[in-house]
């Protein structure tokens, strides 16, 4: 590992200034992804600006019924918050489906959103990878890609985003709060991560030096039936092969509101807008669910070895939609 400077900032403003003053700086959250990548030589920061002691660990109820979660709230605390468990259960379930108890105690809300792909070529500096080294090629496209994308991939990159939490945030219409030297802004969680296109080096819409200060869970999905389901190679402590987060409200026998996002299928949480459009206004029947999910997954373009993901994601989505609407269907 290369040597680096270490700065502990006292305020968000100071952190952004410290970052701007040091070319090659990185922000440090829980470090569970960044330190790992530094050991692998994938990240070689000249300086670390430690965010973990910033006053970004608060959870606030906002007057309009939304909940603001600071970026330094640890994943285990986020999942345990009664407000989250009771009103946005898909988020708690998604966080608890990821990593291990130890890792969730260290991992932060901001760091979880910004964790990098688990593509093995990205993590191995001896292999070609357009995300790590633009222009070097993509080892996975014709190589080992069982875990890779089936939706929205490009000639340049077929990686998936590994976060479970981000999938729930996308389905629940959460917003990501950002601070930069130019000021603050908000981005919808569903639009925060990007598709790879011809810039696979960019995972998200974050600008250089910007800090994730928090996420906001909106009143529009609060208290609505929501759930997360994940398929993986072992029962615990493994990344998703496919996952789904959904929030559904049925009123007078028809679907009045639907938010659905797939995980582990694309370079970002895949918000299933087509499926949602087909569902809203329809009766919550098996046929309607199958029609909607198939409409969405028709866009899938599996690689040589990952076609299994399409029926797997389909089964997960149908199960979650059926369970969430069980009381309205009887």
């Amino acid at each position, binding site marked *: 590992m290369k040597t680096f400077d*270490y700065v502990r900032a006292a305020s968000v403003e100071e952190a952004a200034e*410290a970052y701007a003053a040091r070319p090659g700086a990185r922000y440090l959250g829980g470090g569970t992804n960044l*330190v*790992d990548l530094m050991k692998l030589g994938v990240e070689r920061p000249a*300086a670390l600006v430690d965010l973990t002691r910033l006053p970004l660990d608060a959870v606030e109820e906002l007057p309009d019924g939304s909940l603001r979660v600071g970026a330094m709230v640890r994943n*285990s605390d986020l999942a345990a918050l009664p407000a989250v468990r009771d009103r946005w259960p898909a988020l708690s379930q998604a966080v608890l489906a990821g990593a291990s*108890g130890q*890792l969730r105690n260290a991992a932060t809300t901001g760091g979880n959103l910004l964790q990098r792909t688990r593509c093995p070529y990205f993590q191995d500096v001896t292999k070609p990878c357009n995300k790590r080294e633009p222009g070097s090629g993509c080892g996975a496209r014709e190589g080992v890609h069982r875990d890779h994308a089936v939706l929205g991939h490009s000639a340049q990159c077929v990686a998936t985003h590994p976060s479970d939490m981000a999938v729930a945030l996308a389905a629940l219409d959460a917003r990501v709060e950002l601070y930069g030297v130019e000021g603050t802004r908000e981005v919808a969680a569903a639009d925060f991560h990007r598709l790879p296109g011809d810039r696979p080096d960019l995972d998200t819409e974050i600008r250089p030096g910007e800090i994730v200060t928090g996420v906001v869970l909106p009143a529009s999905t609060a208290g609505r039936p929501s759930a997360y389901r994940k398929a993986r190679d072992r*029962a615990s402590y493994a990344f998703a092969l496919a996952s789904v987060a959904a929030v559904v409200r049925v009123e007078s026998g028809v679907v009045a509101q639907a938010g659905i996002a797939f995980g582990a299928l694309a370079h970002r949480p895949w918000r299933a807008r087509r499926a949602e459009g087909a569902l809203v206004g329809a009766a919550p029947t098996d046929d309607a669910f199958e029609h909607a999910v198939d409409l969405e997954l028709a866009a899938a373009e599996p690689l040589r070895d990952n076609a299994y993901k399409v029926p797997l994601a389909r089964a997960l989505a149908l199960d979650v939609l059926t369970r969430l609407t069980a009381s309205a269907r009887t």
Partner: protein
Amino acid sequence: MWIRGPYGTSPLRKGIHDMGTDIHADGGLSRRHHSETTLQVNGKPHTLTLDHRRVLLDVLREDLDLCGAKKGCDHGQCGACTVLVDGRRVNSCLLLAVSLDGCEVTTVEGLTADGEELHPLQRAFLDRDAFQCGYCTPGQICSALGAISEAAEGHPSHVTDPSVPSGRPVPLSRDEIRERLSGNLCRCGAYPRIAEAVEDVVR
């Protein structure tokens, strides 16, 4: 509520400040690659000048002679390095020691005071024969200790029954123990005995 502040809220912690860089009168920055760091380990303060690259696991084993925590994978994948920082279980292989300035660290060596009996978890691991080679055991025990307090504080897990009300202690069934300890691998496959040992302590 059980939400804790960030690491290092203990009074030992130094004033928050730019630790690694000197800012000169002319505004230039001189880089530093070492910082003085104080860790309260098993109740004793240690002030060390640490290279920023060093992780807690290596400092415990190489500088403080505490070889209980083990290096299995060095990448957060096995749990052999599990220790408690400010009372919470974490993977010490992924924590930069400099970022823990002022924190309290508990390793398997610190579960009991000098000359004291074994900790009930250590006793239970012996009674149940919950290991073979023993390499994963310190991590298993520290992880179990953390898991028991998380459940008592009302932290749910992936397998927690939704009917357990939010914010209330979660009873630790066999399934709960298995899920909550999934971050600790055992190459010898002692899992059934490990779960029994933890069950003995929570019963």
